[in-house]
């Protein structure tokens, strides 16, 4: 490497103004959440949720309602805590030893973080779809049938067959795989795998489905199919979706919540958030000034 390059690297960057705006440069004063974090007919009510990873606070005082049969999108820059918040809703954070959750999270007005609440039962009511498609290394049929089997949802083989078929139809996958239900689920394409994971989740008929960036590993066509699916699923389920794509949030959700550095900045109707955000930070994020 020649000297000029070295000098350039060693030179302290004085031109902060030209780099993307950071928290320091913006001089943010965090205020209470703007918009309408509360809603009528709430499925989930969360109040003053704080999450810590050891000594590191990942979520600060988030209070948010999630209405029944709505699709709510959680958006925000990477590391803003939206996935962590999502994983609080079905206690998936329990698996991380150093993670501690404070505050109230109520599902149908019952606190899910009490000794009395069984996480297994909770997760049967609140299903989850992960960022990376993670089908079991089993057949397509067994993937979908696994949940109903462990929970004992069906009485006999034919009922189970019907349930598997129905779930695959709902997930929009049945036509593509009906001839090879015994083929391994891992042999499907990425988009098909993700729809298989959704079918697997809806097979246990949860009340809420949490989706953690379900389309981030997929191409645009597969993404479009997933979004279409979400639109159909909202008839029967409450859906919380974390996404990095603002277009996706705009397309699938009724409400949008914007997270920033572990804080809930703004919540509102999706149309209003994307056309007329109230908070400075929200506006900067959706116009692509940082993130």
């Amino acid at each position, binding site marked *: 490497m020649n000297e000029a390059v070295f000098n350039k690297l060693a030179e302290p960057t004085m031109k902060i103004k030209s780099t993307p705006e950071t928290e320091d440069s913006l001089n943010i004063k965090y205020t209470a959440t703007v918009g309408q974090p509360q809603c009528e007919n709430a499925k989930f009510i969360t109040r003053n949720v704080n999450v810590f990873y050891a000594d590191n606070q990942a979520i600060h005082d988030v209070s948010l309602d999630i209405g029944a049969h709505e699709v709510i999108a959680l958006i925000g820059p990477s590391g803003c805590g939206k996935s962590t918040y999502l994983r609080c809703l079905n206690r*998936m954070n329990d698996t991380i030893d150093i993670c501690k959750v404070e505050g109230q999270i109520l599902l149908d007005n019952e606190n899910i973080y009490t000794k009395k609440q069984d996480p297994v039962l909770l997760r049967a009511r609140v299903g989850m779809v992960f960022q990376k498609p993670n089908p079991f290394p089993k057949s397509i049929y067994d993937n979908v049938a696994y949940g109903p089997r462990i929970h004992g949802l069906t009485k006999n083989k034919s009922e189970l067959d019907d349930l598997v078929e129905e779930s695959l139809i709902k997930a929009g996958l049945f036509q593509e795989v009906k001839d090879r239900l015994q083929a391994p689920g891992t042999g499907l394409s990425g988009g098909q795998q993700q729809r298989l994971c959704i079918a697997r989740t809806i097979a*246990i008929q949860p009340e809420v489905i949490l989706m953690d960036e379900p389309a981030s590993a997929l191409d645009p066509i597969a993404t479009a199919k997933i979004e279409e699916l979400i639109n159909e699923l909202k008839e029967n389920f409450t859906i919380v979706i974390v996404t990095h794509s603002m277009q996706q949030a705009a397309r699938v959700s009724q409400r949008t919540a914007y997270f920033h550095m572990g804080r809930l900045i703004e919540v509102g109707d999706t149309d209003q958030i994307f056309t007329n955000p109230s908070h400075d930070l929200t506006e900067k994020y959706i116009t692509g000034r940082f993130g």
Partner: protein
Amino acid sequence: MNNTDLVKQGLKKRYLKELIFKSMGIFSIVIAILFLLMLLTDITIKALPAFSQTKIELEVQIDADRLNIEANSPNEVLMAADFRLVIRDALLKRFPEVKSRKDKRELYSLTSMGAEYQLRDMVIDDPNLLGQTLKVKFMADDDVDAVIKGSIDRSLPESDRRVKDQKLSWITALESNGQISSGFNWHFFSSGDSREPEMAGIKGAILGSLYTLLVTLALSFPVAVSAAIYLEEFAPKNRFIDFIEININNLAAVPSIVFGLLGLAVFINFFSLPRSAPVVGGIVLSLMTLPTIIIASRSAIKAVPPSLREAALGLGASKMQSVFHHVLPAALPGILTGTIIGMAQALGETAPLLMIGMVAFIVDIPQSVVDPSTVLPIQVFLWADSPERGFLEKTSAAIMVLLFFLIAMNAIAIYLRKKFEKKW
């Protein structure tokens, strides 16, 4: 000078380094293969004679009067009869010129001590043979065997030769008469140890090893896999668990003879378990195998992608269900490989078993895990220690059998890994 030139300048040196490293690697592999070939050829060449056996065909008259028994006697009487007499008569009939007592004794040693048992078993199998005269191929003595196989050089002067001229002339006479034959040594695989090289077999040691390994597997596999699952999936992360982990790793490094001393002190002296028995050997070896399987199983479980656990938990599976339905099947190839490697280690282990008395000279073939027995590596050790010439080839043959079992176990490990391996 621009960057392209700078890169070009260094390229030659980089490629040279790569070349040097590659040739060093090839050299190392060639050396390793060479040593392996040397070992295998040496053992095979030495062992081959052990797989054939020399036999002497004699016309023997199984006379009930000579045996001092009556026709249609029960088996017990047949068992007690002295069949040596008729074999001796047959030898004398073949060589009528032998008269003196000393020469006769020399003549009688042409056939093996096992010949009378051979004849006895034939008669017990078919009592109608009593009173008949028939040709039987008797097992030859180890000296005759050595002469026929060429390990005793006939051209040496008599004083340097183990087999004297007189005996050699009998052997030559028998040979020219077509009464000496050679066949596959089934006896080696169907009988236990013996003081006579031609009668010594490996079956006792094979079964002893089998029983020992069965006990080892039955004890160490469930314990080790449970320990690995608990430590990996359920155990809290604290200092106590760290301490246990360190100790398991240390256990893997303990010299094996220490386990033998422990077995002697605890299982034999304190719990009064039988000496020389596969059950004690199995317990001692499972102590030794445990850390190997635990370490292999833990790394196999650790290698299962966390997304699989999350998927199961997200569907409402309990921790236990997620482990047993998904993590364990995915980790099974690694666990099985580790187990079989541990078993192979146990199969080749000698030192701890010396301590618990499995080094005893045992002729009987063990029928259960509490019968006294020996194991393959100790059989090798015992035969290598014996002065008789015939045991030299037996030693190499026993090593071949041991290696065969080791290779078979490794092949099974590879097969199982391929079979249970799933992609995700």
